């Protein structure tokens, strides 16, 4: 299998470069992550993040043949060779495919990603009707891999001010939660020309999401709520 991989070790390299590899796969190697692990066994200077290897932890997000995705659920058979692998775009590179995700998580934290409810705790859990619970489907599944936000030009230009698709999807996840009582504060937090309205619905986020989620739709629902609150 032919790979062309972005390499950069700031301690040694003056600037990043692309390195070509030819690797011998075993019959059990099905996903791109298997190939990367195989490569790592021959070149241990090559660095990348991975953990669960089944599309749940979101560690091995990278740019694969120009499109963000998770290496662990990208089938080798579906990829055109040479497979060009780069780190997620728009984030500072620490080394090779490892990027500094601080800005991404800062935006995630800025939307208060937990249920806010100051009423006395009930004896059992706080209950939801099946219909109310239904609203959280397509929102709670996000694994924070950052494929979407780093595919978004608005996030590239203003990562410090624009929350980004992942953060906004999570913002709506808690706005939509009937157990949460801070809807107004949440909308206040987002009613901002940068934080929410940098989104122009180009849907790159929907295109790349490895979990098949739709941040654009969630952002549209936030905008709907803001309109309803105002008019």
């Amino acid at each position, binding site marked *: 299998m032919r790979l062309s991989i972005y390499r950069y070790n700031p301690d040694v390299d003056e600037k990043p470069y692309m390195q070509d590899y030819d690797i011998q796969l075993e019959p059990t190697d099905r996903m791109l992550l298997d190939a990367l692990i195989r490569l790592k066994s021959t070149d241990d200077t090559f660095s990348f993040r991975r953990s669960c290897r089944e599309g749940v932890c979101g560690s091995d997000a990278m740019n694969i043949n120009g499109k963000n995705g998770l290496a662990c659920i990208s089938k080798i058979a579906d990829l055109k060779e040479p497979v060009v692998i780069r780190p997620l775009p728009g984030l500072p590179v620490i080394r090779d495919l490892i990027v500094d995700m601080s800005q991404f998580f800062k935006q995630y934290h800025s939307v208060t990603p937990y249920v806010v409810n100051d009423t006395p705790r009930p004896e059992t859990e706080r209950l939801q009707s099946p219909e109310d619970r239904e609203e959280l489907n397509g929102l709670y599944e996000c694994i924070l891999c950052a494929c979407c936000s780093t595919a978004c*030009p608005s996030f590239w230009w203003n990562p410090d001010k624009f929350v980004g698709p992942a953060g906004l999807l999570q913002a709506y996840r808690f706005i939509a939660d009937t157990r949460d009582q801070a809807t107004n504060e949440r909308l206040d937090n987002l009613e901002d020309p940068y934080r929410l*309205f*940098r989104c122009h619905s180009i849907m790159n986020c929907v295109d790349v999401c490895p979990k098949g989620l739709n941040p654009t739709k969630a952002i549209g629902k936030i905008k709907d709520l803001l309109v309803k609150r*105002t008019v």
Partner: protein
Amino acid sequence: MVNRQVVGAHYGLRDWIAQRATAVVMIAYTLLVLLALVMLPKFDYWHWKALWQLDLMRYATVVFLVALLFHAWIGVRNIFMDYIKDAGIRLTLYVVVILALIAYGAWAIQILWGN
């Protein structure tokens, strides 16, 4: 802990709605002009001039103009917000664009009601 995060400027929604509303106005006006052109008995300078003597066309054009200028302002400001990082330069550009748009509006009205 001191929260130094500046969020929720409490505007942006009005611009977002205005961008959509003005787009609808512009579509309606485009259809009106197309209809007027199709209904012209003859397509020459005199009929064209007569068309713009009609109050309906003149006032519809003013409404369109206001929509266009507002729409253009929101769009151009969005571009500046993305690409111009320095607040001083951005503010200067905002003022220049606003003044230019006002001048274009005045000029268009002069054309509509001039001779």
